[in-house]
Each structure stands twice: as C-alpha cells, then as structure tokens.
C-alpha cells in the first residue's frame, strides 16, 4: 500500500538531524574507536601504539582469567534468569487464580522494577554482610559459616539473589499478560476431561506461554550480562578472587583500573558480537510470534 506522505524535500533531514548527530557522535564514533583500538598495542607509557592485528583477541581468548570470567558470566546469567523467571511464573499463576486483591498484589509486586540494580545489591548486602548484617548474624548463630566476602560461592549466591529479586517484577508482569491470553475454553475442556490442575498447567498453559518464556529468557540473559554491573560493583567488586567477575565487569576493570586499553577494547568487541547474536535470536523469535498470534 502506498502511504500518504508530505512532499517536503529538506524538512525530513532536519527532523532526523538531532538523532543522527547524537548517534554518530556517541555511538558510531566510539564503536569504531573500539574496533580500531582492539587491534592496537600501546607501550606502558601510552606514548606510542602499534598495529598488531588480531593479537589482542588471541591474548584475551587465551587468558585463563578471561575464560574464568566467561564461566562466571554463564553461571551468573543462567542462575539469575532461571530463579527470577521461576519465582515470577509461580507468582503469576497464583495471581491468575485469585479474584480479590489482584490489583493490590500487582502494585506490591512491581516495586523492585524501580529500584536501581546497585541499590538492590546494597539492600541485600546490608542484610547479609558478615560484619553487621542481621541475617549473617542469624546464619552464624545457627552454626553456618557465612562470609560472602571470602567465600566465592557465597558471594555468587548473594549477587544472584539480589539480581533475581530485582527482575521478578518485570517477569511477573509479562507472565500475567501471557496467562491472560490463554483461552479459557481450552482449560475448561481439559477440566471436563478430568485433567488435574497440575496436568492442565504443564500440558496446556505452559506450552501456550512458551513464546513469552523464551522472550523473557533472552531479556533476562541480556539483563544479567549488562544491567547487573551495578550489583556486582556494589556487592563484591568482582571478588573474592574474581569469583563474581562477569565479562562486563572485566571490560571495566581492565580498561579503567588496569589501563589495558587494547585488551579492554578487544573484550568490548567480543561482547558486541555476543549481544548482536542474542538480539538476532530475539528477532527471529519475534517474527515467529507474529505468525503465532
């Protein structure tokens, strides 16, 4: 269909100008710098730099610290996504069943969405830090050795819980919307045939909301990759002994703290590739859902 349009020749360029200018200066320029920088090696004083091709990439990928960070990121992202989604789905199915107080529950459950990740991290750290956290105190009283500042697994547990807590609201809203779109007639038909409510959930409801689940999986993974920088920085600073150093945290740490510009840029480029892959997956899925609906 031919859309009705205005005939102006110059105006559209003026309208586009602000966004294009900002995109060029703050996006394309730095992104191309990152690409360029990733192939340079600077001397320790930052005076000279020479072109080294893909050497930085080889160094990054061959570095055991980097591989450790990949492992940490995978563990962290998968645990955060699974925990946040499972809790949210559980709450959403409960919210579907109640009649009274639906609005109240929703209002109370969407709070954490508005809490900054770094602040969410601080709240949990406050409750669980070994020196004066009340829960740390209770755990120790119960005879459990709790010290996330020294124990890597406990530190990971703490950041996963904080990150998942913040993401419950978001997932909850999407699951509620998805559950509402499941046709009542299907569920009623299954109930008449004698299917129990557990069986109805796993054989009818769950497959029908699979597109939303998959979408949330991608969104939660991206969230765990990038938006949780604040949580990690506030709670553990990547420690203890790099046990919670995710890929994004390492880019920051190598670039701004260790001043390894080439290595940090190479890591940025690898991250970009990962995000583009994730986005591509998401778009293929969006395509599918359009046919589905």
């Amino acid at each position, binding site marked *: 269909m031919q859309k009705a349009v205005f005939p102006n020749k110059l105006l559209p360029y003026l*309208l586009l100008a602000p966004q294009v200018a900002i995109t060029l200066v703050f996006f394309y320029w730095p992104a191309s710098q990152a690409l360029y920088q990733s192939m340079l090696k600077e001397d320790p004083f930052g005076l000279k730099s020479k072109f080294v091709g893909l050497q930085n990439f080889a160094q990054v990928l061959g570095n055991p610290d980097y591989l450790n960070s990949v492992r940490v990121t995978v563990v962290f992202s998968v645990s955060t996504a699974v925990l946040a989604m499972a809790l949210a789905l559980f709450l959403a199915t409960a919210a579907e069943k109640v009649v009274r107080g639906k609005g109240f529950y929703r209002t109370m459950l969407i709070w954490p969405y508005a809490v900054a990740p770094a602040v969410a991290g601080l709240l949990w750290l406050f409750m669980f830090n070994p020196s004066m956290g009340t829960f740390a105190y209770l755990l120790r009283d119960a005879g459990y050795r709790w010290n996330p500042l020294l124990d890597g697994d406990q530190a990971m547990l703490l950041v996963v819980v904080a990150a998942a807590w913040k993401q419950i609201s978001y997932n909850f809203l999407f699951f509620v919307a998805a559950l509402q779109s499941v046709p009542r007639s299907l569920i009623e038909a299954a109930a008449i045939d004698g299917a129990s409510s557990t069986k109805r959930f796993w054989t009818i409801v769950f497959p029908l909301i699979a597109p939303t689940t998959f979408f949330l999986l991608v969104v939660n993974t991206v969230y765990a990759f990038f938006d949780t920088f604040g949580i990690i920085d506030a709670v553990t600073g990547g420690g203890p002994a790099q046990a919670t150093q995710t890929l994004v945290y390492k880019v920051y740490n190598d670039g701004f703290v260790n001043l390894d510009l080439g290595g940090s840029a190479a890591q940025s480029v690898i991250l970009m590739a990962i995000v583009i892959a994730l986005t591509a997956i998401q778009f293929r899925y969006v395509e599918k859902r359009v046919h589905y609906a």
Partner: protein
Amino acid sequence: MIERRGLGRPMAHLVLIVGLFIVAFPIYYTFVASTQSLTTILRPPLPLTPGDQIGANYGEALFGGIGRIGGVAVTTLLFNTLVMALGIALGKIFISILSAFAVVFFRFPLRMVFFWLIFVTLMLPVEVRILPTYKVMVDLGMIDTYAGLILPLIASATATLLFRQFFMTIPAELVEAARIDGAGPLRFLKDILLPLSKTNIAALFVILFIYGWTQYLWPLLVTNDNQMNTIVIALRKMVSFADADTPWHMVMVTSILAILPPVLVVVLMQRWFVRGLVESEK
C-alpha cells in the same frame, strides 16, 4: 466453569503473600534501618520496627550533607539524578518522535539508510563501548556536566522504533484530510499526531525515567566532582568494607530516598507503565 473445590484459592493467596513478603521485605528493612542510630545498626540483630531517629537521620542527610561524599547534601544528589532522568526521558522521546515522523511520513533519498543507521544502535548498550565513549566525552570536555550524563544515553533506537510502529498505524486518510485542509507537516505533527500519541508517550516516559534514574556505570565514569554525583553513585561511594566507619544509617536513608521517586512514578503511573512495558517490548 472450572471446579471450585479444593484449596486452590486460599493457596494462591498464601503464595502471593509469601511472594509479596520476599519482594517487600528488603525495602521495609532498609526503611527500618534508616530510622535507627548508627550504634543500633552496628549491633545485630536489628529490630523489626522503626526506631526513633527518623527525624534526625533524614534531616541530616537531606540538609546537612554527608561527610563521606564530600559533604554534599542528598538534596543536591536528588536534583542531579532528577535532571539526568528527566533529560534522558524527555530527550529520547523528543528526538525519537522527530526521526520516526521523518521516516514514516516523508519519502526522500537515503531514507532507509538513515533508518538502519539508527536501528543498529538498538543492539549495543553503552556498557560494551564504555572506554571509547569515555574518551569521546573527555575530548568534548563533557566530564562533570549534565550534557555528559544525558547525551550518550539518549543515542538509542528503542523509542524511535516504537513511535515508528505506532505512526504506521495512522490511516492514510487522516494524512490526506490534513493536507486537503491545508495543514503542513509540522502542523500535522503538533495538532494530530502528538495528541494521538499521548498514551504511548506516557508509557515510554515511565520506562525511560526509571532507566535514567537507575543508571550506574555511565554516571560513575563521567562524574568526578562530588557535587555532580547521582544518588546511586553517591551511595556506592559511601559504602566501604575496608574501614569500619561506613555511616550505615546515612546509607540507609539515602537508599530510601533513592528508591522512593522511581517507585512513586511506577506505582502512580501503573496503568501506562504496565501497558508500555508489555507492548513496547513486543
């Protein structure tokens, strides 16, 4: 009608109440801590009900200034954060409406090139290109400025795509009618398109405001001056485990003040927020 027998409904309420408890408890507990004196906080376990220091703590944080972050008062931090969040939300909405308008309602050479130029930025959050973007900011002299806090974060395509999608649903007859009545493109934008986009703008505003308010990595990098800190960054700077003199009561007060404005926005604009979130993400 599905069977009514059994414990289905009471169980559901129970699950929701437990969930609500998990979600709300950390915030409630922070509030409790913010009303206690430092000595009470340092001696766990903390009581479960608010203490009597509420006036003193909040007064000190809001107007007195906090030593650990250079004596800056929380009001300054709140102002900085508000400027940043509003700047990002309004700036993004403004430039996206204009560019979406251009792409949908005009035909001109390189139209699709521009569209893709913007579209590609959808994929890359600022986190993956921090170092070079930081360099650009230094070159442009934008460290410790509001422009430096805001501009790099409004370079993103989400809002443009959203408005483009919405504009494409506007019937061609409406455009024809406006043209026949002698309305130019800007008149059409102002008198017809903007009023029609009101709910979309409100929904997007909530989401972008939260996005701006909760930013962490970027303000951490571009602000050196304590006077320019956002509230989240200042909070981070107040906490230290290396030495024992973290003013926890001030940290808790500041946390509550950092959480309150965005929570109010989300709760009060809930209707638009929920719609905007679920629809904009497709």
